[in-house]
C-alpha cells in the first residue's frame, strides 16, 4: 500500500484530469469515488462530513466570517420602559465573541479543506487499485490497519485535535487582537471594537510617541537583563561546580545537595519572601541599621538602579543550582589526562581553565545558553514576584515600572488596564525578537560545531 501511496503524490489537478467521471464528480460530492469502488462506509463518512460542513457553513459559518470582518455594528443600547418604570438593556453586538466565532469558522473551513483533499486522494487510491486489479480495502481492513501500520495516526489524532482547539485557535484569536482597538475604552459588551490594522504597532514602535518612549527603554532593559542573567548564572554555576569538583574539597555530595536544595523551594515562594525581607522596613534593612552599617534604610527595591542590581543578584539564587548541576556532569566527562599533561607542561589553573575546560564546556552547552537567553527574555516570575515591576516612574506610561520586562508589562496591560490590543502587539513583538535571536544564534552555533573542538 505504501508503494502506491508514494506514487500518488500528484497534484489535485492531475488527479482530476486523469480520473474517470466518478473521480471528477467526487470533487463536488465527497466520497463518491470511494462508494463506487466499493468502499461504501468510507465514502458515506466523507459524504456525511460534507453535509455537516455545508450545514454549518450556511447556518452560521458565513455569518461568523462576515461578522468577523465588520466586528459588529450595533452597540449595546438602553431604553426606558415606561410601563414597568425601569431601564431595559438592548443587547448589542459583542465584538469579542464575533472575532472568536470568526476564527473558529476559519478553522472549521481549514479542517474541511483537509478532509476534502484526503477524500479525493483516497478515492483516487481506490480507483487505481481497482484499475490495477488489486483488492480495494474495505472498512474492516482500514480499521485493522489503524492498529497496525497506521498506529501513529490513531495515537496522534486526539493530541492533534487538542492542540488545534486549545493552542492554535486561541493563538490566532489573540494575534488578531493586535490589529484591533480592543482596549480599555472599547470593552464589549458595552462598546464595539474595530479593525485598525497596524496602528498599534506604529504607536508602540514610534520613538516619538509616548508608548514608544516606554517600549524602547523596557526593551533595552529586557535584553540587558537577559544577557546578564544568563551569563551570570552560567559563570556562577561553572565556578561553583569547579570549586566543588576540585581536589581537596571533602563531602562533595553534601555540598552539591545543599545547593540543589535551593532549587527545591518553589521559586515564587522564595521570591516573595525575599521581597518582604528587602523592603524599606524589612528584616535586612532593620538588621543593617541595628548593626550600624547604615543610618537609613537602603533602597533595595525602591531605587531604579538598586532594584535592577537586586533582581540580578537574587536571580543567581534561582539560576545557579540548575547550571551547577549540568556543568558538574560535563566536568566529570573531561578526560583528566588533559589536565595532567597540561600541568606537566607548566600551565597554572587559570590557563587550564581557559584553554581546556571552558572551550569544551562552551561547545557542549551552547544550545543550553541559547535556550536560557531566550527564556530569560520572558522571565516573568523573578521580576514580577520580587519587585512587581516597581519602582514606578513618571517616565513610562501605562503602568510600566523600571524593572519591568516586556512580558511583565504585557501582563499588567492585560490585568490592570484591560488593553488587550497593546498586550497582543507586545506579545507579537516579543515573539519576533525571540525568534530572530534564536535563528541567528542557532545558525552561528551550527557553523562552529563543524570545527574540531578540543585541540
Amino acid at each position, binding site marked *: 500500500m505504501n508503494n502506491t501511496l508514494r506514487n500518488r503524490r500528484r497534484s489535485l489537478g492531475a488527479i482530476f484530469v486523469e480520473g474517470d467521471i466518478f473521480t471528477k464528480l467526487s470533487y463536488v460530492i465527497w466520497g463518491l469515488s470511494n462508494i463506487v469502488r466499493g468502499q461504501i462506509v468510507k465514502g458515506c463518512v466523507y459524504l456525511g462530513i460534507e453535509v455537516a460542513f455545508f450545514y454549518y457553513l450556511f447556518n452560521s459559518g458565513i455569518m461568523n466570517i462576515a461578522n468577523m470582518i465588520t466586528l459588529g455594528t450595533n452597540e449595546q443600547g438602553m431604553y426606558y420602559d415606561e410601563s414597568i418604570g425601569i*431601564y431595559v438593556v438592548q443587547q448589542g453586538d459583542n465584538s469579542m465573541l464575533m472575532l472568536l466565532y470568526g476564527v473558529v469558522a476559519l478553522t472549521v473551513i481549514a479542517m474541511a479543506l483537509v478532509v476534502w483533499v484526503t477524500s479525493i486522494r483516497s478515492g483516487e487510491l481506490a480507483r487505481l487499485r481497482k484499475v490495477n486489479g488489486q483488492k480495494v480495502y474495505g472498512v474492516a481492513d482500514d480499521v485493522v490497519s489503524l492498529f497496525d501500520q497506521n498506529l501513529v495516526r490513531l495515537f496522534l489524532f486526539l493530541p492533534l485535535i487538542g492542540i488545534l482547539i486549545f493552542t492554535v485557535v486561541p493563538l490566532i484569536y489573540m494575534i488578531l487582537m493586535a490589529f484591533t482597538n480592543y482596549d*480599555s475604552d472599547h470593552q464589549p*459588551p458595552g462598546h464595539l471594537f474595530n479593525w485598525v490594522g497596524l*496602528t498599534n504597532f506604529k504607536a508602540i514602535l514610534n520613538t516619538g*510617541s509616548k508608548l514608544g518612549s516606554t517600549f524602547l527603554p523596557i526593551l533595552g532593559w529586557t535584553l540587558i537583563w537577559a544577557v546578564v542573567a544568563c551569563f551570570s548564572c552560567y559563570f556562577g554555576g561553572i565556578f561553583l561546580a569547579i570549586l566543588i569538583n576540585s581536589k581537596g574539597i571533602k563531602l562533595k555530595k553534601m555540598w552539591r545537595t545543599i545547593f540543589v536544595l535551593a532549587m527545591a523551594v518553589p521559586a515564587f515562594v522564595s521570591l516573595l519572601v525575599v521581597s*518582604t525581607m528587602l523592603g524599606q522596613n524589612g528584616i535586612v534593612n532593620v538588621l543593617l541599621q541595628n548593626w550600624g552599617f547604615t543610618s537609613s534604610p537602603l533602597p533595595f527595591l525602591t*531605587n531604579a538602579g538598586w532594584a535592577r542590581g537586586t533582581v540580578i543578584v537574587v536571580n543567581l539564587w534561582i539560576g545557579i543550582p540548575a547550571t551547577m548541576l549540568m556543568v558538574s556532569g560535563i566536568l566529570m566527562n573531561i578526560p583528566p589526562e588533559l589536565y595532567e599533561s597540561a600541568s606537566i607542561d607548566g600551565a597554572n589553573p587559570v590557563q587550564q581553565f581557559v584553554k581546556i575546560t571552558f572551550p569544551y564546556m562552551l561547545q557542549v552547552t551552547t544550545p543550553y545558553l541559547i535556550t536560557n537567553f531566550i527564556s530569560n527574555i520572558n522571565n516573568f516570575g523573578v521580576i514580577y514576584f520580587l519587585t512587581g515591576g516597581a519602582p514606578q516612574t*513618571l517616565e513610562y506610561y*501605562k503602568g510600566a515600572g523600571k524593572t519591568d520586562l516586556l512580558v511583565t508589562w504585557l501582563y499588567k496591560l492585560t490585568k490592570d488596564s484591560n488593553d488587550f490590543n497593546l498586550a497582543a502587539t507586545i506579545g507579537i513583538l516579543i515573539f519576533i525578537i525571540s525568534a530572530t535571536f534564536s535563528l541567528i544564534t542557532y545558525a552561528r552555533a551550527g557553523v562552529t560545531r563543524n570545527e574540531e573542538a578540543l585541540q
Partner: protein
Amino acid sequence: MKKTLALLLSVCMVIALLAGCGSSNQGSAPAGNTAGAETGGGSSAPASSNAGEVQKVSLKVWVPEEEMEITRQMADSFAAAHPEYDITFDISITGIDESVNLLETDSDTAADVFQVPSGSIVQVTNEGLLLPIGYQVDAVKALYGDGAITASSGEDGLLYGIPFSPNSFFMFYNKSLFTEDEVKSLETMLAKDLGNNANGEKIYNFSFTIHNSWYIESFFYAAGCSVFGPDGKDPTAMDWNNANGFAAGKYCIDLVNNPNYLEDQDGIAGAMMNDGRLGALCSGTWSANDIKAALGDDYAACALPTVVINGTESNLSNFADYKCYAVKASTAYPLAAQQFAEWLCNEENQKIRYEENAVTPTCLSLASDPALAEDPASAALLAQTEFAVAQPSIPQIGQYWTPVEALGTGIVHGEITEANLQQNLDAVVESVTTKLVG
C-alpha cells in the same frame, strides 16, 4: 489483574479530577443542607394569588462571607413582601473585591445582584455590564445623601449602584497620646513632642500612605486642586501643576522629611500602633477591629485633620467611596433584581446590617442615630464623608492611578525634591490627561 488495577486507578483519578471541578464560590454555610443556599421563596402567600399570575424568578446573589446569614434573612423577608414572585435565591460568597473581576470575566454566569465599590462603577459601566437602577429611583435617591448618590452614578448621570455603606478612610488615634482637640489639625499633631516609649524607642506622631494614589489626593484637593475639573467630568483638565498643586506637593515632601512622620509601608503603621509607638494613622473601617484590639481603651477615631497649605487651612479631602449593591446588565429578571437590590439597601436592612456586623449605614435617617455616635469608627467615617469629594466618574479616571502612584512613590523615596517637583507635576498631569493610542 493488572488491567483491573489500572482501570480502578484511572477511575479514582477521574473522580478526584471531577471533585475538584466544583464551583469554588459556593457558600461554605455551616447549615449543610442548604449548602450554597437554595432558599425556596414565595409560596408563603396562599395559593390563590389575587394580583394576577405569579412570576417564577430566580436570582443569583453574591455577598461576603460575614453577610451570608443576614442576606438569607433579607431574602426571606423580600420573598414574603412580594407574593407576585415565586423566587428561588442562589446566594454564594464572593467578596466586594472579587465581584468586579468575576463579572468582567464571564457576565453570563455572574450573579444578578452583587456588591461593587463605587469607585469601580464608572469602569464597569463603560464595559456595559451594569443595569441602571430605574425602579422608583427617586424614592431610592431620597434615602441617601447627595454625595453617596453622585458617587454611585455613572457618566450619564443614571444611578448604577445603591450605596449601603461608606468606605472612605479616616483617622484612628491613640487617646493617651493625643487629645480630641489636638487631632483636629495636622500641624498641632506634628508639633507635639511625644518622646520615647518605655523601651526608649521613638514615638511617631502621624502616619499616612503618600505612595498610594487613593490617599495622596487628600492633600491636593485640600489645596484647592481637582482632577478633571471641579465637577470631575473634563478628561483634559487636571490642575495639579499650578501654584496650589506645587504647594501641596511641597507640603508632602516636607511631611515625608519630618522626623515625626512615618510612611505606612509594609504594614509598619499597624505594627507601630501595636507597640505604642505611633500616635495616629489613617485607614478605614477594615482596620477598625485590629486597631481596637491593639489600643484597647485608648482607641479613638476622628475625621482627617486640617492642613495649612499656602496659608489656607482646609480639611484633608479624600475620594468618597461607598460600597454599593448593583445589578448586572444581562440579568434575566431586571425588575425583580432591582427591587431586591433596593430591598437589601433599605432602611431596616441597613439597620440590621449595622447591628449584626457593624457596617456603617448610609441612610440619612440612620446617620443621626445616637447609637452610631457611640462607635468611634462609624462616627469618624460619617464625619469624614462630609469633607470627602466625589471621585470623577468618567472613564479617563483609569489613567489617574499609576502616574499619581509614581508621584507618591517618588516623593516618599526622596527622588522628587522641591527642585524637580514642578516638572514631575507637569509629567503627572500629562500622563493622566493623555489618550495614548488613537
